């Protein structure tokens, strides 16, 4: 399945601002350490993401890109 939310983990400073704003509570801080030396925010349950953009809007570091499924044209 295509991802709805993509974290550019090597930009992330692990500030956690995105964690509480997620209405479906799928963002967590990973155990791994990124290039900058931080534990990056991440999402694994892509199927639960509703593409609300909350995380992207509060992120100070341009880490997050958000996608939405295209409307299927009938026929």
């Amino acid at each position, binding site marked *: 399945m295509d991802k*709805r939310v993509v974290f550019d983990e090597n930009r992330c*400073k692990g500030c956690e601002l995105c964690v509480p704003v997620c209405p479906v509570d799928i963002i967590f801080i990973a155990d791994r350490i990124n290039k900058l030396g931080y534990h990056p925010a991440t999402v694994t349950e892509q199927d639960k993401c509703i593409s609300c953009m909350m995380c992207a*809007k509060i992120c*100070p570091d341009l880490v997050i*890109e958000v996608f939405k499924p295209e409307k299927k044209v009938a026929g």
Partner: protein
Amino acid sequence: MKQIFAKPQSMTDKVSHYCPGCTHGIAHRLVGETIDELGIADRTIGVASVGCSVLAYEYFDVDFQQASHGRAPAVATGIKRVHPESIVFTYQGDGDLASIGTAEAIHAAMRGENITIIFINNAIYGMTGGQMAPTTLLGQQTTTTPEGRRFEEMGAPIRMAEMLATLDGAAYVARFSLHDIPNITKAKRAIKKSFQYQLEGKGFTIVELLSTCPTNWGMSPNESLEWVQTDMMKVYPLGEFKTPEEGEKK
């Protein structure tokens, strides 16, 4: 899948030097989105100030000048007078704009310079390590107010937006906050308005943004957002203080 949120085109790929959770990054993005949406990247000239945002020019893919401490509105005046067709904005913190550069800010407003100021109020000097700013709240501890700011010795927080709104040359004066999504949305709307007014030649525009400094406040980034709401907003009410349509709102 269709992309519905991406880095603004008018911003560079560079990872910022700001501390984790500092809302400078949000303010930068809102300015970048505004430049994109108005299609003005090719004629925008930014002016970086001195303080945490000293390297702002590294993050915007537009022409920039770096100003000395507090003088960004004077530098912007020089640029705008030479290129009146360009869009000129300064990006200044509270030490830069409300302390050392108070005269430059007030007089750019008095002259009605057709420029936009993005004013970051985080109630502290960040870059130099957390000293008292003119915007520091009463009781707030900083390295130079170890017992908390006391009115008797250090005076009370300065409200730049309210002050500037009294000047005839100021066209648009607003204060918004970056502490949650609804407020970020309002802040974005105000920033876009301020640039639009400049495009229309309405005169001086300024958007003050309540911002966080987790590092020097000694709080986590999320606690800092909370503190903006519980403490800063009591001293710094949000809203539009002056618009070209309605004038000063008392």
